């Protein structure tokens, strides 16, 4: 059984209140959910809450997972992304973050950033910044246009191009 099929089977078991199935998914995906939440919130306590809420959401909504719309892994990350952005928007730290304001070398946050930087290295610096701001900080196209002083059309086309490059790299 492939990983996706196994995950779908686990989600089905979760829908029937099988705790072990949920914990299996937790062990498999909590590190990624945690990484995403930390990257968005820059706050360990809040990130922990997002991890817990994500798996409680899965516990309560597993029957809503539709395999026709994506893989379990992306569904789980979508839930975590939404919960983390909601918290970010509700907090006062939803502010423009300047380059270079990151944590010192060797810290956990630094390692996370290295990972992201590696994944983003196929992109131009401006595309990289756009994706970071849109995905990890939840800026809308309009906000990005204002923030970066680019026309809206430029923001859209560069975001599309950046995603296309990443997708090409994954193939």
């Amino acid at each position, binding site marked *: 059984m492939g990983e996706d099929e196994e995950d779908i089977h686990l989600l089905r078991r979760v829908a029937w209140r099988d705790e072990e199935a949920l*914990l299996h998914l937790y062990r498999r995906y909590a590190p990624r959910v*945690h*990484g995403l939440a930390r990257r968005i919130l820059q706050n360990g306590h809040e990130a922990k809450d997002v991890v817990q809420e994500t798996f*409680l959401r899965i516990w309560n909504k597993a029957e809503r997972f539709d395999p026709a719309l994506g893989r379990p892994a992306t569904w789980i990350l979508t839930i975590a992304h939404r919960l983390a952005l909601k918290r970010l928007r509700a907090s006062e730290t939803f502010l423009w973050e300047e380059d270079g304001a990151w944590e010192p070398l060797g810290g956990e946050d630094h390692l996370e950033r290295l990972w992201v930087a590696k994944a983003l290295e196929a992109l131009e610096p401006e595309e990289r910044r756009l994706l970071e701001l849109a995905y990890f900080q939840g800026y809308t*196209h309009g906000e990005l246009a204002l923030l970066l002083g680019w026309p809206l059309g430029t923001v859209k086309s560069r975001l599309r191009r950046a995603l296309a490059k*990443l997708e090409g790299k*994954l193939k």
Partner: protein
Amino acid sequence: MTHPDPDDLVRLALDLLSEGRRRGLMAHLRSCPSCRAAYQAHLEALGALVPEVPVPASWEGELRERLRTRPLWERRRVLALGLSLGFVGALFLGGLGGLRWWAGISARRRFFDLAAQPGARLMPLLDPGGRQTGWALRTAQGEVLLLLKSPPPPGRVYQAWLILDGQRKSLGLSPTPLLEVGPLPEESLVGVSVEPPGGSPAPTTPSMGRTRI
């Protein structure tokens, strides 16, 4: 078929759309393989940006604790209790017959308004004897609603169930003939039973109706 703006698929993957627009696009994706493939590719690409950060071992125990503190159907029971109390209070004020009639009319109106929208799909709800007891509706946005022909008996509620692998999971309660059960995967098998106001962890009466939608 009219396809959405490709930038909207990017926004969808970045979760930057309003809830209404998001649901509209998800409905389109269910019927459009090319847009669905583009959206999934966006999600995969964004997922590749996510680093793994180990979680402390103690978190798993905390999650396990939280799972056990409040089962879902009990929380629904609290909601149902609130609904029931409100319903009983309203009955006291408005009179049993009048309010039940009004609730039934409102439920039917809402259901058939949604059924009239483009892309909506209706299926009959059938009891074990094959008689039609109501309708199931899948909206273009993938929401599923169930409408029974008659309201539940006095002092009882309808409870909707998802039937999968021979087991039943509660999808919610209603003191009216209308059950809004939310989005479900295509071809889900759903059913309805009559239950006490707090609902039940498993059906306690024969099926009022079921269908695959």
